Every structure is written in C-alpha cells, then in structure tokens.
C-alpha cells in the first residue's frame, strides 16, 4: 500500500443511534484502493456497503477514523472543498440513475461541467464524446423518461465521467437492471478501468457483477474482509 493510494481508509467507523441502540454500519474499515484499480465491495443488504460508499464519496462524515483521498485527510477539508472534490475528482453512478428528469440526456451530462465552469463549447464537445462512447450518440435530446433503464444508466455513467474524475464510485449500478442490461453496464465500467485508467469502486450484492473486478472485498456487519 503506497502512501498516495487513490482512496485510503484507516479504522473508518460510522455509528448510528437507532431507537436508543447503537448500530455500527461501518466498523473499523482499513482499505486502500490504488490508482487504476477496479475494486468490488460485496455484501448482503444492511452490511454497511452503501454507508462505506457514501463515506468514501465524501457524501457523509464518519464518526471515527480517517479517509485520505490521494493523501488528503477529508476531515481537513471544508464543506465547499468537499463539494469541489466530488465535482472534479469523483464520478457517482447510482442504482436509481438519478438523472434530472427535466433535462435531456446531453443536458444531464453537461450539468457537472457547467457546475465546474467548463466553457460551453468544450463541454458540448465532451458531452457528445461521452454519450457516443456509451452508444447514446443518437439519443442526445431524449429526456430520461423516453430512455430505457439501460440507456438511463449509460447517461448516468457519461455524467459521472463529465469532469474527467480520477475515481468512479458505483453504488449498485445494476440493481435496477435485468441481467443482460446489467452485463452491458458492467462491461462499460470495465472498459473505463482498462482503457481510460479510471479507478473504480463498485458496490454490489451480486457476485456475478462483482466478479468483473480484479479485487473483490466482502463487507459483513460493517467489517471488511479481503477475499
């Protein structure tokens, strides 16, 4: 494990109080994801994998331990800096796609670039490229409801890549897809890793999907086990 791992957690912990009872959703996780790695985190529902993903994605604050993103302790960053980190360094792929329903496919992909202040022309060029890469070159002007679920997730992936992030965090990206469509999505993620060198962290409960990764970790009761 090098010091400048892409994402590194040290004794990471997230506790909740639910009805007076303490739940340790993430319980002392030590993990290092190196640059260019494709890591799957598997576990049954309730194992804490989404919570771990949210912590690594700086969407949530831990109750104990540290997260280092390329060597930077996230606790040392302000909320604004964390926003910037998510905007420019990370791409999120959601189980439920989470596209903005009023925007067309290309507008959804343009959105993060607009937030990052990318000039319109280069942003449009990149959005076209990304949508062509996920085979949606012909569906640019369709709003999400006019796209199939598989197409929506491909827009989701294109959006995640908009600002050319170092990591892609995918939380059950195939959870709402049939197995054929899921296979296509997993293939795209694998291509991002191999051809574009993106670091990918994939959370899933599906062993078949998880097996696309070279490294598979298991999470049970908030504790992480290397297979």
């Amino acid at each position, binding site marked *: 494990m090098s010091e400048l791992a892409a994402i590194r957690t040290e004794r990471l912990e997230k506790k909740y109080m639910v009805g007076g009872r303490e739940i340790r959703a993430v319980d002392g996780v030590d993990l290092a994801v190196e640059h260019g790695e494709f890591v799957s985190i598997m576990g049954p529902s309730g194992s804490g994998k989404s919570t771990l993903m949210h912590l690594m994605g700086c*969407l*949530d604050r831990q109750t104990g331990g540290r997260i280092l993103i390329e060597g930077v302790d996230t606790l040392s960053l302000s909320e604004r800096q964390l926003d910037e980190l998510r905007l420019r360094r990370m791409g999120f792929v959601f189980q439920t796609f989470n596209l903005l329903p009023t*925007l067309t496919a290309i507008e959804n992909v*343009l959105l993060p670039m607009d*937030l990052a202040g990318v000039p319109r022309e280069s942003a449009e060029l990149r959005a076209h490229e990304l949508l062509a890469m996920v085979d949606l070159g012909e569906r640019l*002007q369709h709003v999400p409801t006019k796209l199939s679920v598989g197409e929506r997730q491909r827009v989701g992936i294109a959006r995640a890549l908009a600002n050319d992030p170092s990591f892609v965090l995918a939380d059950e990206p195939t959870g709402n897809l049939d197995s054929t469509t899921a296979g296509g999505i997993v293939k795209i993620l694998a291509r991002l890793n191999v051809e574009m060198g993106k670091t990918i962290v994939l959370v899933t409960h599906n062993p078949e999907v998880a097996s696309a990764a070279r490294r598979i970790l298991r999470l049970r009761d908030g504790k992480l086990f290397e297979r």
Partner: protein
Amino acid sequence: MNPRMPGVLSLALSNLSRRRVRTILTTLGVTLAIAFTVGLLSLSEGVSLTVEREVTKLGVDIFVWKKGMETVPLPGMMTYAFPEEYVHEISSFENTQFAIPALETIVLGTGGPPLIIEGIPPSSFLKFKPYARAEEGRLLSDDDRHALVVGSALAETSNMTLGASVNVMGTNFTVVGILSSGGDIFDSVAYAPLSALQGASGQGERVNWAMIKLTDPSAAKETAALIETRFGDLTAVTMDDALAFSNSMLGIARAIHLSISSVSLLIGVLFVFATMLISVSERVREIGTLRAIGASRYFIFELIVVESLTISIIGGALGCLGGYLLSEAINWIIVESMGVTFVQAAVTYSLVAIGLGIALLVGGLAGLYPAWKAAKLDIVEALRYE
C-alpha cells in the same frame, strides 16, 4: 436543437416548466396581487398629479375659507359661508392685488351627477381663470343675471346645450356659454354670477370662499397670517400650504391603499411560498443528486430563490399590466358614473417600478425559507428519500 447549458437559470426554468399548471396558477396569484396593488396606488398617484397640476395652474396665491373646513380647496367641498364684506376688506390690504369672492353650491337631483356651481363676479372670472375660452356662446358678462357658463366635461356628461335651462333651488338659470376644455377640474364645474347665485341659494351677501392674488407672492405667508388675525373665523391657505396639505393627505391615502393591498400581497407571498415548499419536497432526491455530483449548498439555495423570483417577476410584470388595465377601468367608471374627467388614475413609471419592486420582494421573501430548507438537506438522507 441546441442543448441548454444547465446553469442556475435554465435549471430553474426547466423545473418551473415541469409543473406548468402550478407555475401558471402561482404566477397568476402574484399577478392579481400586484395588479390590485398597482391599481389602487394608481388612484392616489392620479389624484396627486391632478392636485399639483390644478393648484399651480390657478392665477391666485391665497385661498380663504371658513375655519373648520380643513381641506384642499377642490370644488364640491365648500359648505360654510361668511360675509362677502370680509373679501372686500381683504381687497384693501396692502399686499392684495385683487380678491375674488366665490360662492359654491351643489345642486342635486338634476338627473345627472351632482352639479357644482361656482358663483363668481363676472368681471373677476378671467382673473381667476385666465385661460378660459368659450367654445360655444360666450363668457359671463356684468349684465348677466341668471346665466350659466358650463365646463366642457359637464356639458357633455349632463347633455347641456346653449339655451338649456337649469333649475337651481327653484330659480331657472340659462346656459349662455360652454367653455373649451382646460383638461382640468374646472371642466366639470358651472359658473354663475355671484349675486344671482347668492339670491337663488338664499345666502344673501355671503360667500364660502375667496381667492386672493398678491402683489408680492413671496410674502404670501405673512399676508395669510394677517388675514387670519383680522378675521378669527377664516382660514387663509397659501399655495405652498395647499400643496403640502394635499401631499400629506395623499400620503395617508397611499398608506391606506398600501395597507389594503398588503392583504393581497400577503396572499401572493403565501402562494409562492406554498408552491416553492411543495416543489422542494418533491425534489428532495434531485437536490441530493445535485449535491452528490458537486453542487454546493449555495447553488441549491440560489436555484430555489431564482425559481421563486422568476415566478414573481413574471407575475409582477403581468401585474403592472393588470394594474394599468384596472386603472383604465377605474377611469372609465369615474367618467361614466360620476361625470368627472379631471381626476385620472395614473400608472406612472415610478408606480411600475414600485410594482416590480414589491413583486421582487414577494418572490424573495417567499423563496428564502424553502431555499434554506433545500440547501440544508443532508445529502445521504436526500438520496435515500422516497
């Protein structure tokens, strides 16, 4: 079709267009509130313009009337009489150029609107109204007894023609002239020789107001004080006093209009507030998504406020238009039912600016809390929100 670059404004617009009916209804709410406000304020605005125009146009410096009638000297408001002799005495004051005694009578039951008749010595008529011209017939002359000269607007609304006979408290007066329009308050008034009107109304040698022209207008205040000292029961009001007084009255009128319309404005605020609050609660997950992909709390706050302001600005602009139409309707009613043409509700540029300003305030106020609520959402909870 070119894709929109989804900045705050175009995101806001696309969100507003998603719930088209709701957006239109909410905008309509703001439109009505602003239209009502602008319409009401156009009344005091119009009266203010009228008074200023009228008072400064008259060829006199001081108005005199009986104490106890604290008002601007507009026709139809003179009731208490005092001896005409007082006016003759004022004529002999050092600073007096001339003093015109006048008796005002209101005749009801002519079938039309109330008829206001000013009794004035015919020889003084042009001193008081230097710009008066007879459109038809002639002006009053010293030989006239039961003669009437009527303003153009009055002639029109009351269908008075030359030679027509008007019954003033039992005495018939004949119309001998119709004045050309001065575009002012006196277009709605009729004039009769003072002595004839005194006789007809049983006032004897009494009048109820007087107009005084000074040799040195800059000493108006002193002369007015002198008149009040000499005649304890008279009020002498200079032009400046009259303007100041009418402005303060209009200030009160404006405040009353605003407080009435504030109810409608409050409803407008609640309209937008409810809409934005519902809209935020429907979009919790979208807001969570925006935050997750890197939008700051500030961006979310801005987004909601811009949506709220967009509704209120469009509503405000339409409301100003509606207020203008309302003021036109008010004018139509004033002319048609009351026969008054000199007071016109007016939507001035400053009133439009006030209307838009209030609309912005409505949108801003209504948007703040929903925007704050949206901005403080926890990202993870928002993403999980069903």
